[in-house]
């Protein structure tokens, strides 16, 4: 093999110049094409985030049920169909027995009522401001109520605009979510196996072991969170149904979903219920009952003393600072939805990191034992 003569002097500089220019040019090309690529991917996957998220949730919830049937020597596909069928029958039965909660009329009524609630809150705020102004005159030129009214009108406009669109989206969800979760349930093992088999031989055993631990912990955590939200939502719904308050099912859903966010979520989930109760029922025994349902029964007794100790390990607890960061970052990425799922995802990442660290520490300690035994 003959080696090329090494360039010297100006030739060397020229080579260096050409190489650098080519490097920079290709770097810029890759960067710009990558950003358009990211754009494409973003456009293509735009509406898919919510269906895939919901399908994953459904998959995590149904997997234990499917396993029960699988244990009885039924093939996995047949087990999934059986579970689907049973769920369908249950939902039908529920609809026949209780009748569907009338979401549409409830939404229409809410749309009509919303300005009224806002007006009452504005009144209240104005009264508060008046007393504030009398005490702190220099706050006079601060237009709190104007700002609030502006924000509320924007929010109402958003609801009016989004409802027909979201109705379409919900229709597609009913089609997509069962389909996606069927394939997730059937093939998730195969998908994960083929992903894991990509790791190099040297790290294969370690990756497989860590994946096994992390996936078990994560499944446990996610299932726990979803069950917690479901139970809290149901309890709030039932508790509110005892009073004359309207929109009890809707408020239950809000309470359950916001409960996914620690610290801040329950408070935010409480606000709509309390506002509606204050405006419609006035501050009386019913208002205080609703307050008790939210705070004492759902949060303190049920969530803190019963659900969290049973369903969720303390491992997943996040420092409040991380919670705030996760909410802000989630909100930047995916709006309200991102705010809600940001914290669970952050907890999931924490669980994964902890498991890996624990695995490594047991690895090191057993290795030390082996070495010391040999010496």
């Amino acid at each position, binding site marked *: 093999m003959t080696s090329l003569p090494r360039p010297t002097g100006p030739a060397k500089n020229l080579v260096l110049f050409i190489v650098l220019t080519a490097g920079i040019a290709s770097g810029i090309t890759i960067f710009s094409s990558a950003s358009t690529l990211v754009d494409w991917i973003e456009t293509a996957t735009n509406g898919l985030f919510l269906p895939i998220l919901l399908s994953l949730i459904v998959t995590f919830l149904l997997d234990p049920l499917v396993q029960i049937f699988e244990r009885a020597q039924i093939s996995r596909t047949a087990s999934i169909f059986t579970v689907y069928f049973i769920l369908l029958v249950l939902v039908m039965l529920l609809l026949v027995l209780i009748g569907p909660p009338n979401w549409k009329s409830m939404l229409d009524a809410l749309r009509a009522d919303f300005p009224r609630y806002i007006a009452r809150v504005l009144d209240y705020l104005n009264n508060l401001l008046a007393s504030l102004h009398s005490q702190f005159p220099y706050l006079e030129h601060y237009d709190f109520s104007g700002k609030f009214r502006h924000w509320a009108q924007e929010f109402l406009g958003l609801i009016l605009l989004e409802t027909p669109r979201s109705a379409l989206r919900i229709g597609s969800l009913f089609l997509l979510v069962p389909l996606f979760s069927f394939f997730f349930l059937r093939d998730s093992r195969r998908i994960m196996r083929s992903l894991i088999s990509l790791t190099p031989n040297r790290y294969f055993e*370690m990756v497989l072991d860590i994946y096994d631990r992390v996936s078990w912990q994560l499944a446990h955590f996610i299932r726990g969170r979803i069950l917690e939200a479901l139970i809290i939502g149901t309890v709030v719904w039932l508790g509110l149904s005892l009073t004359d308050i309207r929109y009890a099912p809707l408020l239950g859903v809000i309470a359950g979903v916001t409960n996914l966010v620690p610290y801040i979520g329950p408070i935010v989930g409480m606000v709509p219920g309390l506002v509606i109760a204050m405006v419609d029922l006035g501050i009386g025994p019913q208002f205080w009952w609703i307050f008790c349902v939210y705070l004492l029964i759902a949060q303190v007794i049920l969530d803190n003393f019963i659900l969290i100790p049973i369903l969720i390990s303390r491992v997943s607890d996040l420092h409040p600072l991380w919670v705030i960061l996760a909410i802000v970052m989630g909100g930047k990425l995916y709006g309200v939805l991102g705010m809600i799922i940001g914290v669970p995802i952050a907890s999931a990442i924490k669980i994964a990191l902890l498991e890996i660290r624990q695995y490594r520490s047991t690895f090191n300690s057993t290795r030390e034992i082996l070495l010391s035994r*040999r010496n």
Partner: protein
Amino acid sequence: MDPFWSNIFRKPGYKATLAYFLGTIPIFANLGRRELGFLEALVHQRNYHPDEVVFTEGDIGSGMYIIRSGGVRIEMKNEHGENRVQANLEAGDFFGEIALTTPHPRIATATATEQTVLVGLFRADILDAVRKHPAIASKILLGLTRVLSERLQHAGLRLREQSFSHLDTSRGEHS
């Protein structure tokens, strides 16, 4: 037919499948065809280059390997820290089975001697199978126990022979 196309469209006979191969291993000798099919979905097939290390002494072990083709050299360090070859394994042999039940550090180093295909059966998958398909999993574990106890008995016999012979020689020295 053109050999190229016949290669692509050739239907592999049962003897060419991984399930058949697994059935020839003593541990899985008692499994039926359906159970072997289940096992086939449980194991991982890995390819190794010549002189590629499968695991080294002291690694955390998480499962056993069966040699489908090729060969593996098992080495242990002696007290001077030199590698001593303990065994050369061939297709159909298996190794590392101790780690299948509990996380143990590997007590030897395994290296592929040629282009080798290994079939790995790992603790994580076995535990998963125990949860989901207890009947088949217990059959697999029973086969493993049988082979392990046979080996233990063999080792015990050899140890006894050695200690007796040691006693004999020491008695000879005294008299």
